[in-house]
């Protein structure tokens, strides 16, 4: 993690002065997707970089220790060794940024990662995920328990009631949504968030991270997200300390693209290891 967000005095006028030119934001969103593409070895390199930003996530009702174990293994070895060797990237220790699970599964995740000698952090969703409509007492207890179990990052669900009544808090990262809504990470929303991060940095010198989550399924999308962050905030933010992508099936698609880049062929389902 980068330096914690030291925070500032809450100045509500910063929030009330915000104006968003929505049609212009929509146009900018289209523009970035249309104009910033990468091909060939650039695409391969960017995709590998994208892997290092992924919070490999499983948030299903039927999660058990066995699929968590598989997930953690995949987090440590996200891309097949021989593919990495062809790109001369096998010795970089490429892993995903973190593993993201429900609080009850944090133990299993920590155990699995320890067993493979892997140091990537375990992130837990907490605070009544995904709706956040539980008592403050239980929400705080959830966080405490998750941290006790070994989670070093917490995805907090903000209390929307407070937001809608104008009562704000600070954080180290901002996330587009829980990923469980009908509309999750879209470009126009992201542009507004990134500009807010930039303005906050200009005003206070604090760097806040950004995490889009939900609906990011293909490699092409992930490249667009990297472009967006690069365009709006610059290369400084393109590090796992400040940028994460919450995704589950994305990794598989990235691996398929890498496979195609290296071999020139389209992989079959069974060619690549499950996660």
């Amino acid at each position, binding site marked *: 993690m980068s330096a914690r967000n030291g925070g500032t005095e809450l100045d509500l006028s910063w929030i009330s002065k915000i104006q968003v030119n929505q049609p*212009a934001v*929509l146009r900018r969103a289209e523009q970035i997707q249309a104009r*910033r593409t990468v091909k060939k*070895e*650039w695409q391969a*390199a960017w995709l*590998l970089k994208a892997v290092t930003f992924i919070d490999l996530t499983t948030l299903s009702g039927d999660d058990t220790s066995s699929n968590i174990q598989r997930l953690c293994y995949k987090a440590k070895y996200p891309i097949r060794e021989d593919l990495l060797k*062809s790109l001369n*990237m096998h010795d970089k220790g490429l892993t995903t940024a973190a593993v993201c699970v429900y609080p009850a599964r944090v133990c299993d995740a920590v155990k699995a990662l320890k067993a493979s000698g892997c140091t990537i952090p375990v992130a837990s969703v907490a605070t009544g995920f995904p709706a956040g409509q539980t008592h403050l007492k239980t929400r705080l207890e959830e966080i405490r328990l998750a941290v006790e179990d070994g989670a070093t990052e917490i995805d907090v669900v903000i209390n929307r009631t407070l937001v809608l009544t104008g009562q704000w808090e600070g954080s180290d990262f901002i996330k587009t949504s829980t990923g469980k809504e009908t509309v999750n990470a879209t470009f126009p929303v992201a542009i507004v968030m990134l500009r807010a991060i930039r303005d906050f940095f200009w005003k206070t010198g604090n760097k806040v991270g950004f995490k889009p989550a939900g609906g990011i399924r293909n490699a092409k999308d992930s490249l667009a997200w*990297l472009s967006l962050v690069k365009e709006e905030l610059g290369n400084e933010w393109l590090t796992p300390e400040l940028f994460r992508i919450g995704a589950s099936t994305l990794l598989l698609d990235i691996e398929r693209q890498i496979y195609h880049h290296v071999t020139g062929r389209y992989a079959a389902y069974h060619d690549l290891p499950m996660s």
Partner: protein
Amino acid sequence: MAATRERTSAREIFNTLEYGPVPESHACALAWLDTQDRHLGHYVNGKWLKPEHRNSVPCQDPITGESLTACLQAQAEDVAAAVEAAGTAFENWSGLPGASRAQHLLRLAKMIQKHQRLLWTLESLVSGRAVREVRDGDVPLAQQLLQYHAVQAYTQEEVLAGWEPMGVIGLILSPMFSFLEMMWRICPALAVGCTVVVLVPPASPTPLLLAQLAGELGSFPGILNVISGPASLGPVLASHPRVQKVTFCGAVEGGLRLFIQESVWDETMRRLQERMARLRGGRGLDGAMDMGTREAAARDLAQRYVSEARRQGAQVFQAGDSLFPPTLVSDLPPASPCTQAEVPWPVVVASPFRTAKEALAMANGTPRGASASVWSERLGQALELGCGLRVGTVWINAHGLRSTEVPTGGCKESGSSWHGGPDGLYEYLRPSGTPARLSYFSENLNYDTFGLAVPSTLPAGPEIGPSPATPYGLFIGGRFQAPGARSSRPIKNSQGNLHGYVAEGGAKDIRGAVEAAHQAAPGWVGQSPGARATLLWALATALERRESALASRLERHGMELKDAKVEVELSARQLRAWGSRAQAQGHVLQVAELKGPVLRLREPLGVLAVVCPNEWPLLAFVSLLAAALAHGNTVVMVPSGACPIPALEVCQDMATLLPAGLVNVVTGDRDHLTRCLALHQDVQALWYFGSAQGSQFVEWASAGNLKPVWVNRGCPRAWDQEAKGAGAELGLRAARTKALWLPMGD
């Protein structure tokens, strides 16, 4: 080998996360050029034309200098051949029902869709513009243009009844045009039934490709003809008797002026520079570029401008390192020549302002009048600026949006022609039954001496017949005043006897009249349409009260008394008709792909100068005056030469009824006064109903400030007919359009 290279690169790129090139292959463009053996001719009447003994001009890649093809330089005979072909095609094309033309345009749109890759690759390769601009902007818009105009053609018989296509249209394009600019103009022309001859500068393959695509549709080969040739052929095209109208498109994309309010100067400059630093410029055919590169001449122009600006003490910020990166110039002293000069691409000049009023004055203070955008969160303020800016298009909180339904044009030195929307169609139409424009161009007209000297006047004999004293003087600023030259001219009646004297107006008086009209303009524009209507109606009543005096004046000039009475009656009626049309006309357009309305506003031109015809001396005078005033203009009128006195009679009523300076009437030598008005840089439009020679002079001289003109080329007009005296044509010409874009969203 490849594997080694790949291994090192991917590893490096993993750390730097640079973008890398996304090259678009231009093989298809080269393949097409090969079909013509890299030697393009002209495309006339559905076939390639390669006349012998012509020079060729090479066409080069603007960045690498690689030779792409050679293009023939046309000569006068080629232009004539093209016009002939277009003329023949016009007979058929204009006679078709609109639905058939619509079908044809849709087929052309499909053809473009099938060959779009070739089109955008060729355009990007030759012009250096970013391929994504052509691919995602120009080509889809070209298809939409064809579709929109197909719809207009389909409904033409009902909606545009009473209008007919003009004939053969000549289109002259300047060296830095884009093929989209060409499409904007040929689509409306073809849709309404005209046929087109395009003169492109040499080394422009894209229009030739387009002509080939159109020609390969099979039917109606001669409707679009393209000749590539030097600028000197422009006059040849323009003076060809079968060409009814010439449309000229000058260099379009220039730099920008940015006006930023002082209180947000620092923030805005910071964000602007931050964003500029991310712009990628380079080879147009690279798909990841924001901006393409122009040829050396354009870059030199920009370089000179920037060096000059630096010398005058400006701050210059340049982002990136492409051949000529986007440049931001600020702190330029207001009095420096660079502030007045045209800003070249890709430079932006930023200037601060204190209040909105100041911003308006600064923005209106340049001779350019094409488009502007206003960025403000305060709706009232944004709209006020939007309405005050003297430009053809205003965007609120957006910039550069274009759509086929919205008219695009300008005023002042951005010219007065329109494309897109309904205005674009009228450019190529004339009222049904208008005789074709015959050639009236006289080689012998001496522009330096026309109207320069004023013949001296001498006493002309006794005034005969009963007459109340004719009103004497020039009617300027709401009262009669003596002419600067202190001289008069006699007016003879139909028997050749002296009717009376009128003042001899001259250059000084014209100057005074124009000034008075400008002073009265803000007040008149501010009047509500209802107030204007009331005044015009009051004038009509006054005219009726004066009927016997006016009729007797007209009778002295050989009219039958009963005809004279009819003329007076018609005049009053015209005043009332125009009065009732003095409603603010504008309407809301629905634009595809835009959430939010676009307003098509009709605004006054400003000071309108009118040289009235000799036929219908009272009726024409009153009709023209009424039309101009109803649309919010103020006027300077030169009445009929042979019979100016009825006009002066009316002035007596105007002195009491109308605000001072609203209408100014100057009598005198018509050619001299015409000269003064045509050469005046602060007259916004000039209508001339006089001789053929005078018409030619007016058109030539008005190029000084590009004011729109309307001339009769020496042909009389039937002012008593509804369509001529009070019809749509006068209404169209008496005002200009402004498109106000209001994108919505929160």
